[in-house]
Structures are given as structure tokens and as C-alpha cells.
């Protein structure tokens, strides 16, 4: 950013005019090049952003109010601002006489203004209906955005004029106001895009006020309650065929509660398709010997035993009178029966149920047990993921540490030999692995054995290939003399990179084709792209080899470092929740998917952290141990590892904290644990159980947090 003018300015009014047309043009002519570039790029970007945002919202019908509301908005907010500024002036002049507080008071004015608009804005402008609220937010913020943009434009015109009248070499005026205007603009756009509507949030608090107490104190659902249920029944026949009288009415009893209905045979209610309701036969129900003053419920059970509460047929909740009896009327409801069972006499059951008060039994409910088990599962997911993360991140971190990787340089012929050896070793290993797999009966029969054997074979033969191949090429080509060796190894390197280059080219062209879908559009066909890829790879390899000719060899260490670091960075930016969704498709829902996903993210994240710890070590001891003749591995064990132990432990505990939190919500994506239950209970509107889950999560996370900080104090 230049602060001084570099050349003599021209007429200030010309510059002002130029800046009016194109932002930054005047400043450019005046010599303030980088300021001109910033203003040009900035103003145009913000203009584009604003126009696009407003255009998006303008498509909705609720956008746009009558002109008077606009005017009202501008007028009243200006009034408010003037009022606040006057208040501030009075305040600072007569109450607080401290010049340092003047700046603060401006900040206070800004805050008050925003708060006023935020909470009281719509009342301030007294809009007609609440449907206008959202429209107000949209238009209001759009107007503010437009105003800021206009103010910014005018500012940079003024800036161009001001620069025009400065003598050369002067410091340019500050861009503070411009920055403020840009912030205002971005704030307005953000407000617009995120649909912030504080009055709505306040007005609709009732939606949450019913829910919140149940979530905050959900413990009733954690226990089982004993309840005695008394049910007395009377069979009813419906429909009633010609001549039948139905089952006998119950007789009153002295010993126990009873109900009786008259008649016991009648017609069902019907709800025709055209609408309305045809009521069925009216029954008179009497009952006795119940507990006086208690409430009883009427239930209807259809012939196959499905119970339901009949609605609209008469009262279903009845208070027993002081004699222990009751009388009520009820129409036979529209109890639908599946046609396949509608043979013979259709006997429904009229039931009267008396539930005693629930008694606390002290036993844990089934759902609570489920939640506790899920919580344990969650803790274990976090632990296992961290454990596997540590194991795999540790070696990976060394590959991603620049100070360890940079010195690894190998001469070209040895590298070429090693790669060739690796390929040969893998080929042999794969052949043998297939033999073993066939002998063991294939992947279905013995997956673990095949996997382990395959790993061992590939590892052994690959390693042997690298070592032998490298040594072989080195000796053979070394004997042929340096020039021949260079030419041959470069040629071989070219041949080797040509293969992946070929496939990359092929893949690239197929990728383009799959988007464009027109084989003729791509000027080159598939094979040509493939050869192009191979050719590019060969050229790159040649260039690289020639450039590194003078040095001691290819810095294979830096290549490995770059690949590792880039991969880690890319994988790290994807949140575990997304990995869980993918994992649950591969492995299936459940904690294994969650553990796998979390472990993967832990590995890449920890590897990055560990490698940063390795890069920050003191190189002195490294030098000293190296000077004693130690091999690279010995140097790492004796000089690097002791130094990185404290940050390693610190990072591991940090990651464990994160994993505990992550594992609680990983279930939401299908990863098992408490999150799995939580999301189901939310969907079933079981707010008590949701509350229990939330409480369990909070308690567990807090407890593990405390533990980890205690461990950290002890060890680090």
C-alpha cells in the first residue's frame, strides 16, 4: 500500500470527475496506484454483491413495500441518528469532560443505533401487518446497503479530489472512513442475506417456552412409575343384523366396579366421502362401584382388539359421582374393521378405564438405560478414534515435517532404481497375494488373513525392491560413467512418469466429456489427451532432472513432504460429520462408522499438529546426535522424540477433548452413540428424552474436560 504520491498530480477536479465515472481512476491518474487498484476492485465487487443480493430477494412477493414506508424508514432512522448524536454531544459536553471518552461515545452511539433498529425497528415505523416484518428487514437492509455503497462512491470521489490538491511526496489521507463504510455495507448485506429478524424471535418466544422447561428438567422420563389400571368392559355388537339383540348387558355388582350398556346391538357411525358424519346408535352407559370423585376414561376396542378413544360421540372423560357410579350417553363410533376379518358377528368392546395415580417406583426407565448405554458408546467412540488417530498420525507427522524431510536427497540413478524396484516388488507381492488368497478361499472366507498377508507381502517385497533396485541401478549406472548414467536415469524417469501421465490425461478427457457430453466439442479425442498427459509428464521430469543436475540429487524428501502436507490439509478441511455420512453408507449405521470417520479426521488433524511440533524443535541436539555417527532413525529417537513429547501430549489431550464433543453429535449423521438417539427422539417429539440426552452430553463433556485439564497439569 503506498503512502506517498509518486508523481506530480493533475487537476483535482478532473480526478474527482474521473473517479465519479470509474472508482479509483482519479487516484490512478494521481499516482496512487495501489490505492486505485484496491478501490476499483473493492467497490466493483461490493457493487456486484449488493446488486446480486437485492436481486435475489426481489424475486419474492413479500419484497417491496409502498413508497411511503421507504420514506418513513429513511426519515425515522435519520431522526433517530440525529437524536442519538445530539444526546452524545450533550453527554460529552456537560456530563463527561474527557476528550478520550469522545471516541468511545461515538462507538456507543453506533451500538445504540443498531440495537434500536434491531429490536424496535418495526414498531418505530409502525408497519401495518406482521407480514411486513420480513419485507421490512429485506428492504431496510437493502436501503442501508445502497446508502453505504453510494456513500463509499462519493467518498472515493472526494478522496480523488483531495489527492489532486496534495503536493507530491505527501502522505495520502487515511482510508478510515472508507473502511467504516465498507463494514457498514457488508453488515447490511449480511443482515439481509441471513434474514435476521429479532422482533420475530421475541414475538414467537412462546414456541420455545413450552419446550424449554421439559428439556431443562426432563428427569421424570428417567424413571418408571407404577400405576394401577382398572378396566371394566361390556361387549357391543355392531353392525346389528335383523332380529338380533346382541350380547347380554352386564348386571350391576356389589363386589367390584361394573358397567352396563343399553342397547348392546346397534349401528356404527359412518363418515361418508362427501363429508359430514352419520351418528350410530346411541348407547346409554351406566356404571357403579368406582372410587367417587375419580376420573374414568371411555375406550372403544374394535373386534380385533385395537383400542382408541372415540371422538365426537359423547363425553369420554367422566367424573364418578359421590355414590361411586355414573351415567352417560355415547354413540357407537365409526370403528373400521379390516374387510378380511369382517365375517360373522362383529363384537366390539366398550371399556371404561380407571387409572390410579402414578407412583414413583425408583426403577430406571428403559429409555434412560438406553441413553446411558448410548452415552458409554459415545465415550468409547471418542476414545477409540483418538487411540487410532495417535497411532497413525505419529509416523505420518514425520513425513510432514519440513526440517526432517528437506535434507533427504538421493541421487537420480538410485531414485529411479528404487521406484523400479518398488514396482517390481509390488508386482511380485500381488502375484503371491493372489495365490494365497485363492488358497485360503477368497475374500469372503478369510478377509483378515488375506489382508494381513497381503500387507506383509507388499511391505516386504516393496521394501526389498526399493533397497535392491536402488543399489543395483546405482552400481550398474555408476560403472557406466556420469554422463551415460544421467542420460539413462533421466530417460527411465521419463518413462516411469509417462505411465501415470497417460492415465491422468485419459481421466482428464473423460472427466471433461462427462460434463460436456459432446464428443465433438473436445478438439482432441481421448487417446490424444492421454498422450498429451504422458508427454507433459516426461517433459516435466526432464526439466526437473536437468535443473537438479548440479546438486547431489533429487530432493525426494521435499516431494514426499509436499504431497503429505497437501493431502493432510485437504482432508482436514472436511468435517468429521461428513465423513460419518460417507462411512455409514460404506459400513452401515452404527458406532463403527462413527469411530472410523472420527479416527480418519483425528489422524489428519493430529498429524498436522504433531508435524508443527516437530518443525519447532531445537536443531542443536539434532546436530550433536548426528555428529556422533547415529543413523537417521537413531537421531530421531534420541534427539527429536524427547523434545516433542510435551507438545505431543498437549496436542493429544486437546484432540481428545474435541473428539469427545464430536462423538456426541456424530450419531446425528448415522454414527451411533447418544447423537443417534437424540435425533430420533427429536423427530418423535419426545422432548423429555431429548432433555435427558442433552443433560447426559453436558455432564459427560464437562467431566472429561475437567479430567483432561487435570491430566494436562500433571504431565506437561
Amino acid at each position, binding site marked *: 500500500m503506498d503512502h506517498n504520491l509518486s508523481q506530480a498530480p493533475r487537476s483535482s477536479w478532473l480526478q474527482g470527475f474521473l473517479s465519479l465515472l470509474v472508482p479509483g481512476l482519479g487516484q490512478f491518474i494521481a499516482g496512487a496506484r495501489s490505492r486505485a487498484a484496491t478501490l476499483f476492485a473493492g467497490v466493483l465487487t461490493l457493487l456486484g454483491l449488493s446488486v446480486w443480493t437485492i436481486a435475489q430477494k426481489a424475486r419474492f412477493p413479500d419484497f417491496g413495500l409502498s413508497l411511503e414506508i421507504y420514506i418513513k424508514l429513511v426519515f425515522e432512522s435519520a431522526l433517530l441518528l440525529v437524536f442519538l448524536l445530539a444526546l452524545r454531544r450533550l453527554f460529552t459536553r456537560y456530563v463527561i469532560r474527557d476528550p478520550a471518552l469522545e471516541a468511545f461515545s461515538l462507538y456507543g452511539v453506533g451500538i445504540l443505533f443498531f440495537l434500536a433498529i434491531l429490536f424496535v425497528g418495526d414498531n418505530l415505523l409502525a408497519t401495518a401487518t406482521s407480514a411486513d416484518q420480513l419485507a421490512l428487514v429485506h428492504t431496510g437492509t437493502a436501503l442501508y446497503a445502497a446508502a453505504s455503497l453510494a456513500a463509499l462512491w462519493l467518498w472515493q470521489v472526494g478522496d480523488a479530489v483531495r489527492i489532486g490538491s496534495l503536493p507530491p511526496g505527501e502522505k495520502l489521507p487515511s482510508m478510515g472512513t472508507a473502511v467504516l463504510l465498507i463494514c457498514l455495507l457488508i453488515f447490511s448485506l449480511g443482515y439481509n442475506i441471513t434474514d435476521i429478524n429479532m422482533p420475530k424471535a421475541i414475538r414467537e418466544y412462546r414456541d420455545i417456552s413450552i419446550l424449554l422447561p421439559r428439556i431443562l428438567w426432563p428427569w421424570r422420563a428417567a424413571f418408571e412409575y407404577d400405576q394401577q389400571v382398572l378396566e371394566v368392559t361390556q361387549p357391543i355388537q355392531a353392525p346389528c343384523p335383523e332380529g338380533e339383540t346382541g350380547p347380554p348387558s352386564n348386571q350391576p355388582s356389589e363386589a367390584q366396579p361394573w358397567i352396563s350398556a343399553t342397547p348392546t346391538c346397534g349401528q356404527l357411525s359412518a363418515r361418508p366421502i362427501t363429508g359430514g358424519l352419520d351418528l350410530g346408535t346411541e348407547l346409554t352407559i351406566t356404571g357403579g362401584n368406582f372410587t367417587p370423585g375419580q376420573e374414568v376414561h371411555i375406550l372403544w376396542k374394535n373386534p380385533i382388539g385395537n383400542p382408541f378413544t372415540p371422538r365426537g360421540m359423547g363425553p369420554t372423560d367422566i367424573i364418578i359421582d359421590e355414590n361411586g357410579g355414573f351415567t352417560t350417553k355415547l354413540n357407537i363410533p365409526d370403528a373400521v374393521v379390516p374387510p378380511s376379518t369382517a365375517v360373522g358377528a362383529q363384537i366390539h368392546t366398550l371399556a371404561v378405564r380407571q387409572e390410579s395415580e402414578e407412583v414413583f417406583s425408583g426403577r430406571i426407565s428403559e429409555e434412560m438405560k438406553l441413553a446411558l448405554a448410548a452415552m458409554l458408546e459415545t465415550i468409547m467412540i471418542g476414545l477409540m478414534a483418538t487411540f487410532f488417530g495417535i497411532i497413525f498420525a505419529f509416523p505420518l507427522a514425520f513425513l510432514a515435517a519440513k526440517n526432517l524431510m528437506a535434507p533427504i536427497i538421493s541421487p537420480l540413478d538410485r531414485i529411479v532404481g528404487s521406484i523400479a524396484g518398488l514396482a517390481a516388488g509390488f508386482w511380485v507381492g500381488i502375484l503371491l497375494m493372489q495365490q494365497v488368497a485363492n488358497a485360503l478361499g477368497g475374500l469372503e472366507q478369510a478377509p483378515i488373513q488375506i489382508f494381513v498377508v497381503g500387507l506383509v507381502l507388499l511391505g516386504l517385497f516393496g521394501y526389498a525392491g526399493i533397497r535392491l533396485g536402488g543399489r543395483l541401478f546405482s552400481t550398474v549406472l555408476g560403472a557406466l560413467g556420469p554422463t551415460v548414467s544421467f542420460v539413462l536415469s533421466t530417460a527411465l524417469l521419463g518413462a516411469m512418469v509417462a505411465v501415470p501421465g497417460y492415465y491422468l490425461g485419459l481421466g482428464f478427457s473423460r472427466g471433461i466429456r462427462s460434463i460436456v457430453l459432446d464428443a465433438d466439442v473436445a478438439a482432441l479425442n481421448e487417446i490424444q489427451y492421454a498422450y498429451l498427459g504422458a508427454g507433459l509428464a516426461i517433459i516435466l521430469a526432464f526439466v526437473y532432472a536437468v535443473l537438479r543436475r548440479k546438486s547431489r540429487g533429487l530432493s525426494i524428501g521435499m516431494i514426499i513432504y509436499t504431497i503429505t502436507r497437501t493431502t493432510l490439509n485437504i482432508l482436514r478441511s472436511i468435517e468429521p460429520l461428513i465423513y460419518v455420512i460417507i462411512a455409514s453408507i460404506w459400513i452401515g449405521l452404527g458406532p463403527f462408522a462413527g469411530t472410523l470417520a472420527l479416527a480418519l479426521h483425528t489422524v489428519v488433524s493430529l498429524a498436522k499438529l504433531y508435524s508443527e511440533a516437530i518443525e519447532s524443535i531445537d536443531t542443536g*541436539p539434532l546436530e*550433536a*546426535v*548426528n555428529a*556422533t555417527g547415529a543413523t537417521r*532413525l537413531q537421531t530421531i529417537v*534420541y534427539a527429536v522424540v524427547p*523434545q516433542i513429547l*510435551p507438545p505431543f501430549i498437549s496436542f493429544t489431550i486437546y484432540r481428545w477433548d474435541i473428539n469427545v464433543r464430536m462423538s456426541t453429535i456424530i450419531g446425528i449423521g448415522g454414527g451411533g452413540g447418544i447423537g443417534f438417539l437424540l435425533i430420533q427422539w427429536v423427530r418423535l417429539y419426545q422432548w423429555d428424552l431429548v432433555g435427558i440426552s442433552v443433560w447426559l452430553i453436558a455432564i459427560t463433556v464437562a467431566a472429561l474436560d475437567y479430567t483432561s485439564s487435570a491430566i494436562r497439569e500433571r504431565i506437561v
Partner: protein
Amino acid sequence: MLKVEHLTMVYPDGTVALRDVSFEVKDGEFLGVIGLSGSGKSTLLRCINRLLEPSEGRILWKGRDITHIEDSELRLVRREIGMVFQQFNLVKRSSVNTNVLSGRLGYTPPSWSLINRFSRKDHDRAAQALQRVGIPDKAHNRADELSGGQQQRVGIARALMQEPKMILADEPVASLDPVLAHSILGYLEKLNKEDGITVMCSLHFLDLVQRYCERVIGLREGRVVFEGSKKDIQQLSDERFKQIYGEEAQRLGAQ
């Protein structure tokens, strides 16, 4: 023992640290290297055991050219050359004993050291080495619990573990007070006279050079500008002094 021929070292950013340096170190000698900071003393010492790679020239160790040898052979050469550093370069979090034992890594098979296993003899050697430098009781303390002088003695013990033919000392006493400096250099002198270990030591102060070094080479801006015996140092004229240390240098202390 050591012969350096036309050694030139240019850093990747273009700084020329050593220019055409040639000299010889005889068996059992105590050679001092003097010069301003930045004159190339540290670079020279590090080139000898190839902690830094020279750009041109040759290093001959016991008559053999070691400038371009492979890592596996370099290991065998490095374990014969011990090194002592200005900043001691101990592994702070490890015990003194582990630090001393790490001097034996050049002789230990790599797989053993992974599980921190040294032979019985190595442990005895370590105890002996600590005894020789006078701090046998500090064997199990953490390295950073020791004072500066004690830490440097551990560094010497570590070099001793290699049973070296030569010790390179890169300003070993620059961070220590005068009394300690004499003490540490005294140990080096003892090793030089009693065990016949060649010592190549870079020093700042001429009184130390006079007291301990048989022969001296002086570097300035990467070039050898002085080569002489102890007597030559005693009789160093002002002119020659300025040749080594530059026009603005002033002599301190007795001449």
C-alpha cells in the same frame, strides 16, 4: 590425521563462508582456530564431519577422501570424530546418562537403540566418562538441571564415549565464565595429552589460545590468513593481529 585441501563452502543463498581453505592437522595436535564471528570457524568445523556439505575441495581423513562418501560409510567416519558445541546441544529433557550414552550411537545397531538398549559395557563406559569429567553424581539428573559448566562437561563426556581419534570443539567456552573456561579447556588438554586425541578448537580469546593451543590457524572472511605455532601467537605483532581481526580490532589484555 586430517588434511583439508582447497575447501570452499557456499551457502544456498550465495554467502561464501569458506574460500579455498587448506591446512593440515597432525596426530595428537591441539589446533586452535581463531577469527571474527562470521569468519567461517563454525562452518569449517562442520564441514570436516560433513554436517555441512562443502561446495568444492577435499577432506582427507587418515589419508582417505571423505568428501563424497555414502551415508553408511560416513557413519563409520563420524563416530571417530567427536564434537563439542558452544550451546552444549544436550537433549534437555533427557537424563545426563542418556545424553552421554547417545555418544555411543555410532557403534550401536539401530534396532537396539529403538528400545533404548545399550550394552553393559556401554553403561560402564558412560559411568567412566562422567567420572573423568568430574560429575559422576549427576548421572540421573535431567540435562537442563545442570549449570552451564556441568552441561559442557556432559558434552565432553558424550564425545568421549565415541572413543574418538579427534574432537572438534566449536567455541566450547564462549558461553562460560573465565574460570569455567579454563576448567573445560583443561579437560580437553588432559584428553589431548593423556589419550592422544587430536583436538581442533575454535576460540575467541588469545590468552586461552596461548595457554592451550600448540598451533593456530586464523580465518578471516573464509580465508586462512594466519598459520603459526604457540610462540608465533605470543609474538603476534599488531599488524598481523589486525590482519586476522580487521582494522577496528583492539588488543585486550597483556601482550
